[in-house]
């Protein structure tokens, strides 16, 4: 994975840059090597890079001042929440300022009348729910890292979770953000009224992976917790039967709160790991949650049981909260369980049309044979979000490269069947070079022009998301990495 080349002139100015940042944030500059080591990677841990310097602002004015300084001096910026990105979105740069938002973690207002909460970006996803759960509310998007990941990072990545089919991604649960542009100017996009009086820039910056500016305040919707949740475990003798069941449930009009698929290998690894009681020998397992008021849930559960039977499956229902938790404990421990199958693993993330699941699993098995690496699958079946786990041993020569190539082939397969490279982890550096598989030159150029409307200097998170973004004019010349630019006809300005 190539990043835009380091600007050695910036690196040479390190002491001066550290001093300038200390003048802005006297108590929040990390410049010593041991301190910086904490920030040298995010959750895509195969990639490490020490930042030039890390600054931890504690208010929006400081963020604005930092950005004005960086803009004036032409220094790259990498925004960071809690560093839980699985796609390398917060991977630092040797010549860049890493801005960590972890100190801005105040909950500013809880407004039950309007069903919303205003927070600083460093508040963790789970802490929003914790702040309101005593009143029976919660914040719906629940990425697996919710205990650690910050809401600012969630906005940057448009994070999802298990319950997206019914409750949406981050973008569907946001009312507004306060955003600092690369120029240091502060703009408010949306708010409690949910309207912006112009283009939907709130929708644009959500999921922009730190390429457009910094989030310094967030207004999220909160929802009333459903009074009843019931969980079903359905098992099938074949993957196509499980796939047909998912389609039939959707076609019937049931919208489950969650619907998770596991293939046989995943289910057996999980069963060995923490014995959640998954049936042995099933080729496909579904965990289905229905939530809402009791009457709706009763109706949904009876429909699902009928449909599963019609599709040749068997259903077991969790009879109490303890059993419900046990069934979910397996799914939630999936990565840990798979981790016992091989020394290393990478977790991929793509979305496919649900009907393509049997075909994708079949072709993935062929790829697994081709690369000689194991693979198992968990799948947010409700919304078609696939998480293949590729097993390898980093100590074996060439295994990591093979695993990466295998992963890339899986994502190309997702695109081939009509899906996308990422359902919730983002592109970052991990999938950057695959963007040309999903998008054509015109598509990428259009996105690139939008990027430049915010960040004409190309200073924000360079080298992430777009294979060609480093070609934004930087001090009068164009960086070229690798042998050539993938889109030689891109406009340069």
């Amino acid at each position, binding site marked *: 994975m190539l990043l835009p080349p380091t600007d050695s002139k910036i690196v040479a100015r390190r002491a001066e840059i550290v001093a300038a940042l200390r003048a802005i944030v006297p108590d929040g500059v990390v410049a010593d090597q041991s301190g910086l080591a904490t920030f040298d990677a995010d959750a895509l841990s195969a990639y490490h890079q020490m930042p030039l310097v890390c600054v931890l602002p504690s208010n929006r004015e400081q963020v604005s001042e930092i950005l004005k300084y960086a803009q004036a001096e032409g220094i790259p910026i990498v925004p960071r929440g809690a560093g839980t990105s699985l796609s390398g979105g917060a991977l630092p740069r040797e010549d860049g300022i890493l801005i960590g938002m972890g100190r801005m973690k105040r909950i500013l207002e809880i407004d039950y009348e309007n069903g919303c909460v205003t927070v600083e970006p460093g508040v963790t996803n789970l802490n929003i729910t914790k702040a309101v759960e005593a009143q029976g*509310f919660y914040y719906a998007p629940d990425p697996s890292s919710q205990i650690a990941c910050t809401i600012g990072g969630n906005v940057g990545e448009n994070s999802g979770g298990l319950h997206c089919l019914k409750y949406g991604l981050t973008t569907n649960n946001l009312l507004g953000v306060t955003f600092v542009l690369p120029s240091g100017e502060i703009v408010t996009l949306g708010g409690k009224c*949910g*309207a912006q009086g112009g283009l939907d820039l709130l929708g644009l910056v959500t999921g922009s992976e730190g390429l457009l500016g910094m989030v310094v305040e967030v207004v999220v919707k909160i929802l*009333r917790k459903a009074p009843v949740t019931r969980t079903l475990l359905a098992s099938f003798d074949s993957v196509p039967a499980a796939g047909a069941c998912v389609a039939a449930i959707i076609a019937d009009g049931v919208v489950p709160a969650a619907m998770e698929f596991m293939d046989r290998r995943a289910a057996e690894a999980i069963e060995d790991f923490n014995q959640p009681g998954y049936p042995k020998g099933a080729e496909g397992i579904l965990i289905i949650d229905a939530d809402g008021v009791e009457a709706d849930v009763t109706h949904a559960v009876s429909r699902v049981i009928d449909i599963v039977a019609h599709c040749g499956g068997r259903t077991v229902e969790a009879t109490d909260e303890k059993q419900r938790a046990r069934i979910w404990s397996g799914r939630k421990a999936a990565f840990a369980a798979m981790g016992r199958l091989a020394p290393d693993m990478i977790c991929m993330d793509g979305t496919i049309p*649900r009907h393509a699941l049997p075909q994708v699993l079949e072709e993935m098995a062929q790829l697994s044979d081709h690369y000689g690496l194991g693979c198992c699958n968990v799948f947010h079946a409700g919304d078609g979000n696939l998480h293949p786990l590729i097993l390898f041993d980093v100590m074996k020569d060439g295994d990591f490269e093979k695993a990466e190539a295998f992963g890339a082939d899986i994502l190309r397969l997702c695109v081939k069947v009509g899906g996308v490279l*990422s359902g919730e*982890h*983002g592109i970052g550096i991990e999938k950057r070079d695959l963007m040309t598989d999903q998008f054509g030159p015109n598509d990428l150029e259009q996105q690139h022009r939008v990027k430049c409307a915010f960040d004409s200097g190309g200073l924000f998170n360079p080298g992430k998301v777009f294979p060609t973004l480093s070609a934004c004019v930087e001090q009068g010349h164009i960086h070229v990495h690798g042998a050539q630019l993938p889109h030689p006809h891109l406009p340069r300005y």
Partner: protein
Amino acid sequence: MSRIDNDNQLVDFVRAARESRAPFEIVAGGTRRGVGRPVGDLPMLDVSGLCGIIKYEPEELIVTARPSTPLAEINAVLAEKNQRLGFDPADWSRLLGSNGVATLAGVASCDASGSGKLRHGGARDSLLGFHAVNGLGETFRAGSKVVKNVTGFDLPKLVCGAHGTLAVLTELTFRVYPRPSHLVVLCLSDVTPETGFAALRKIAHSPLEPAGLAYLPASMMAEVGQGAALIKLEGASRPLEEKVALAHGLLGSVMQRIDGDPFASIGCGDRFADIAGDIWRIFLAPSDAPRVAKEIAATHWLGDWAGGVLWIAAPPSDAARIRAIAAAAQGQAMLLRASAESRAALGLFAPQPPALAALNKAVKAAFDPLSLFNPNRL
């Protein structure tokens, strides 16, 4: 008026317009030409030939169609599979006095979301992907045809509500939702705006997943005393009865049921079609709705989305006052129906702060640098 019937003709047209720097107005059904600043005396591009459903996949919860597909056609096709667009696409043609045909692209471009926005979000939450031609005369696409996608910038959000100022759409993919088999509309009669909106917010923040929550004063609905809070619930027949009982319990009163679906004429503004004056939609934090309504003191008004939007009919002389009241409440006042002169003077929304206005302009230029598409409309 020029007409194009396929993407190639569209590309040729835009390239020629670019060569001659000749801006134009994009028209499909023409029902929303009276929204926003008048574009002036410009040639029209008729895109109504880009019409028809390309693919409807009920089991994937998506429908892909050409932009000028009539809304009525989409609604009918989805209804056959017991599905619908979740945001209650709003056909403003009666309100705006148009006899044209409301289209899918018109709905998307205006983010014209009806009462259902409360439950499933607006048009912007349902538009998953699109194909279009930008102001450089290049075809491009963005988003996807799956319901969960974070690949690249979310440009579908941008074209929703851009009023055709960024690109000429050529294909749209929407997420669809199941259509529940039954609905009940409950009416809490003879309540003040304060009491009515408070009841609506209580239901909004309950687990009942309401499909519509509106307050109508006596001037907008007969035989409801001072006014009525309307609550629309949906579901399968038996569970729905239990939800009705829960709603009664939550509000501590037994409400009467209303025949039909009054929300069908609320979300699209039909109730204001025959009322004189400018028509405003004011977006607010819901709890501000009764106070703002009282301050504006219009005769004809109503509140939808539990107070998240007020519809107001007011004389043109009230414009500055209404904008000021909305701004003081940190809301946004959208001038939906007014004379061409008023729309030219007032714009669709109040002017934005300078930094935000400059950013909007830069983003517009990223799609349409010569401002060929519907200039000045937004």
